[in-house]
């Protein structure tokens, strides 16, 4: 396990009057895919939003490459090299597919080779290049959202439930793209409910429950231990 690029220490986050995160501490090692697991409402999405600065941590540290980014504006956090695929995909529906991607490439014109790689992974994006993103299907929107994160190289990718509500064939396409990204050496923090997908992609795993991190270790260990899965994730036996 290499040294971590992202470390959360005792992070607590409130939304309005509600305490959502109580004590979140974990690390994301460089060059690995870390799965953020847990039941619905455990606080996974809030954790990603806290890292992005979209909610503010009340206490605790968010260390990215040894810098505490907890108080930085979202745009600055992003510019440190963090890509974000939100749970609701965050597609700009009034913009075309091409414009969505152009906007995501913040350092200038899109890199041709990288764009070719992305459109090969997600063929519909090429087909509908000039269509308004709002007219895409749910699966195509998810592809666009992931593609937007991939359009330039980033030091960390935060991806929130890419498989949510999608048809199996599309999940397969997404999984293949994420594996590509992993093979290219990317560091990913991935929230995922689909355990088969988690097992296939994850190197490490962090499990959350009720706003706290309750377990972290290797994905392989979690995958091999049905009892652990049952206790942490409420799954009936091994998947």
């Amino acid at each position, binding site marked *: 396990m290499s040294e971590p690029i992202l470390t959360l220490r005792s992070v607590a986050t409130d939304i309005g009057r509600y305490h959502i995160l109580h004590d979140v501490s974990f690390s994301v090692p460089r060059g690995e895919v870390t799965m953020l697991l847990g039941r619905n409402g455990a606080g996974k999405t809030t954790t990603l939003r806290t890292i*992005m600065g*979209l909610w503010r941590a009340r206490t605790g540290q968010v260390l990215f490459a040894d810098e505490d980014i907890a108080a930085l*504006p*979202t*745009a*600055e956090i*992003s*510019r440190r090299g963090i890509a*974000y695929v*939100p749970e*609701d995909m*965050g597609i*700009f*529906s*009034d*913009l075309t597919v091409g*414009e*969505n991607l*152009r*906007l*995501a490439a*913040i350092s200038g014109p899109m890199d041709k080779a990288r764009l070719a790689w992305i459109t090969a992974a997600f*063929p*519909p994006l090429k*087909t*509908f290049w000039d269509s308004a993103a*709002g007219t895409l*299907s749910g*699966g*195509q929107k998810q592809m666009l959202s992931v593609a*937007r994160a991939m359009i330039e190289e980033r030091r960390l990718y935060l991806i929130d439930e890419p498989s949510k509500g999608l*048809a*199996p*064939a*599309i999940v*397969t*396409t997404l999984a293949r793209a994420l594996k590509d990204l992993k093979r290219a050496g990317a560091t990913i923090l991935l929230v995922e409910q689909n355990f088969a997908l988690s097992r296939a992609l994850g190197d490490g795993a962090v499990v959350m429950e009720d706003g706290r991190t309750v377990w972290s270790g290797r994905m392989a260990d979690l995958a091999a231990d049905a009892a652990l899965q049952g206790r942490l994730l409420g799954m009936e036996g091994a998947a």
Partner: protein
Amino acid sequence: MSRAPEHAPTFTRPPLARRLEPWLPVLLIPALMLAGLVLIPQGSSWLTLTVSGLAMGMMIFTIASGMTLVFGLMDVINFGHGAFISFGAFVGATVLLALPGMAGAADMPANVAAVALAIAAAMAAAGGLGLGFERWIVRPVYGSHLKQILVTMGGLIVAEQLIHVIWGGEQIAVPRPETLKGAVTFAGAALEKYRLLAVAIGLVLFLGMRWLLRATRLGLIVRAGVENPEMVQALGYRIRRVFVLVFVAGSALAGLGGVMWALYQEVITAGMGNQIMVLVFIVVIIGGLGSVEGCFIGALLVGLLQNYVAFLEPKAALVSNIALMVAVLMWRPQGMIPVVKAK
């Protein structure tokens, strides 16, 4: 594992009515013109009124476009927008009155240069006022519409009073430059030269704004920001700066609109901005808050309707625009071109 992903696109053609739907608001403009042609007895009067209505619409669009974008981008409603109109008008008028040689001579290039100088000064002044307004009036009250309305209204009062302090309490007459006076005759209709110029300026502005919004990165940020400012920030853009830029640009455009209006009416008062705002509000509401295209269509409809009705029944002009607003809201409660908002 299945190989071929099953997301092949389907190319079934939607029925004509569906495809036409987004264009319906645009079609309202020729429909209104046609209705005017039927109701107004002489074709020449109709043409005069139409040009006048389009000129008025273009000026309202110039003023309203910034306001609708400011709302779309940051959910900020600025009731003090009228102050920029008045301020621009007074600064522009001051410049014109200070250049009697250039504005008064029957010399087209000199006249145009005088107007251009007046416009530049007005836009700079209104933009500067906008910068201060954003910083001291609007910024402390983000997130609360109630306070925004109250505070920007307060800002309007103070700005209007400052105009009185600087320029005195009286209205000021603003004569048009020599070569912009009078009218050209076309198809038996007298078309005021200045109104034609106003239409041209407005059209150039609309096309320029459309280009900016469609073809530049800044435009992409603004359009994306109207829908989902959070995601724009998550992509790494400092949306606050973009917002300040849009606010200042919108204020400057209101100042431009003020100069155009001053030369249209040939008289200005400190309260003129707030009077125009009534039409501006109607336009941004029926256009769809945050939509520049909707704002354009709405402005032309309001301008045309105002002129047609004022000709047919002078007392009903403003009421007819209220009726237009009611009708549009019954048809599309979010305005003609509703803006998609995340969440």
